[in-house]
């Protein structure tokens, strides 16, 4: 079986994101870039299928600027088989990204396409469902587990109070929320192998895609409001007294009790 994982390179989750000089994009200086966390989970789910059945092929693709090549290299080092970069220096709207990805799907013909449920930069979560819609495939969201069986693939979908289990007969798009195991680190041989792999580069033009869908127009960005200067209590051997004072403050001062 062939998997295609669509990924996006975003600021690493440990980065303290700051607003840039233009007030409508982030300051990129000194930012460490990584594979978006949900996409990493998607890679892990696909690679676990490859662990179980070595005939499985796991491809990765991204639509993004030249620096995204590092994210693809990272995915190859984790154990993915091949990678494709669709070069787009200017950020595209989600529907246009989906159109470009659909062309790669038509080329590689995977049975299962996995995307992170959203990229942790714009947090829109549009591309996965839009790709399914463009392809005319069904999609299943919030995936945490993927179990192939005789009658198709069981897809576990996190829901309120538990998991919905769905059965899919490929092709299908899955939007990944989490993997049970933490995404694996690249091994040293994996890194060496990944260095030697060619990463073919495509452009929207070479794919025959015209970017004409709705775009995301950010007017302004700001950091979350500053907090702090709160009241700090020390227990000092009087938990009941502090508890009563705090409960009273939440009731009368903050009015949330």
């Amino acid at each position, binding site marked *: 079986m062939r998997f295609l994982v669509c990924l996006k390179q975003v600021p690493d989750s440990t980065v303290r994101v700051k607003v840039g000089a233009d007030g409508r994009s982030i300051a990129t200086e000194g930012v460490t870039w990584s594979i978006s966390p949900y996409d990493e989970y998607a890679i892990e789910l696909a690679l676990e299928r490859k662990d179980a059945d070595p005939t499985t092929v796991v491809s990765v693709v991204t639509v993004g600027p030249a620096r995204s090549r590092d994210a693809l290299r990272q995915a190859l080092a984790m154990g993915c088989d091949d990678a494709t970069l669709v070069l787009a220096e200017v950020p595209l709207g989600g529907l246009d990204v989906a159109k470009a990805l659909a062309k790669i799907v038509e080329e590689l013909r995977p049975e299962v396409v996995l995307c992170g449920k959203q990229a942790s930069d714009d947090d829109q979560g549009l591309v996965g469902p839009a790709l399914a819609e463009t392809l005319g495939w069904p999609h299943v969201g919030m995936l945490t587990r993927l179990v192939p069986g005789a009658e198709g693939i069981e897809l576990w979908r996190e829901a309120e*109070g538990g998991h919905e289990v769905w059965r899919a007969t490929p092709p299908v798009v899955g*939007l990944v929320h989490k993997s049970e195991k933490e995404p694996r680190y690249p091994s040293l041989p994996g890194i060496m192998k990944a260095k030697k792999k060619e990463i073919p580069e495509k452009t929207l033009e070479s794919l025959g895609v015209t970017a004409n869908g709705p775009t995301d127009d950010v007017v302004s960005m700001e950091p979350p409001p500053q907090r*702090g200067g709160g009241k700090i209590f020390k227990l000092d051997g009087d*938990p009941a007294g502090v508890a*009563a004072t705090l409960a009273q403050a939440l009731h009368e001062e903050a009015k949330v009790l």
Partner: protein
Amino acid sequence: MKILVVAERRSGEVRRVSLEIAAKAAGLGECEVVAVDPPGGKEQARYSPVAHATAVAEKARASGAKVVLVGATLDGRDLAARLAAKLGWSYAADCTDVAVEDGSIVAKRAMYAGKIRATVRVALPAVISVRPGAWTLPSGAAAPAIVDIDAAADDPRVAFVRFEATSSGGKRVTLAEARTIVSAGRGLKGPENWKMVEELADVLGAATGASRAVTDAGWRPNEEQVGQTGKTVTPDLYIALGISGAIQHLAGMTASKVIVAVNKDPDADIFKIADYGVVGDLFEFVPAFTEAVKKVKGRG
């Protein structure tokens, strides 16, 4: 301007977020509220992307709506994205405010996992999902008239098979919609101490949440994780017990109205954003606090 609101039901009841949106939308334009009856009818209520998005898209086209508003619940976010793609409309997810200005929508939404707040301009027509609790439900707001529409035929390549409940069984209010959340971290020392968290949550009528350390260790189900790669929450009151405050956790709860933190370590980062902090042993404090809350609530 015509607005279509897609309401969602949970166990037969219209969700609070749907009521919040319907109440607000009435002030933004001419508003119609629909709910999709899933395949198999109300009893077998399972959201399915193709069946639901196809039905709502047909309705949106037929009604001449310029905006579709959907509650940003798990299913609502999924539906809104597929719907925007199906219609080829603009899209903004999990918005915390929406206004109509000069023939387009100006929306506020979190980006970068809550580390940035953005104002975005969204061209019409558009599909917008709205974060639960973003709009206060006016007290005494009339229940909206809801038109039920049938789900379209589902894609035959996917089918719901069964539900696997987690131990908590979804008895509590969900994290996304909770007005009060009690969250615990590694400071709780082990799953055997979770009872203490539940007792406080019961007294408060709160949802329970957890730090990533706790869900990764398997003490609590993943769905309770608050923060980046978990849930972003904005309750009126967020109580963090034994959570040190990693940047990924803070990003997911920093927009809460009032934050209470209890931690042994006076230098823990969580205190930097707390409105009320308690430095000390949570095993001493929490049972005492549960009793104190009971007393305050008892007095009304």
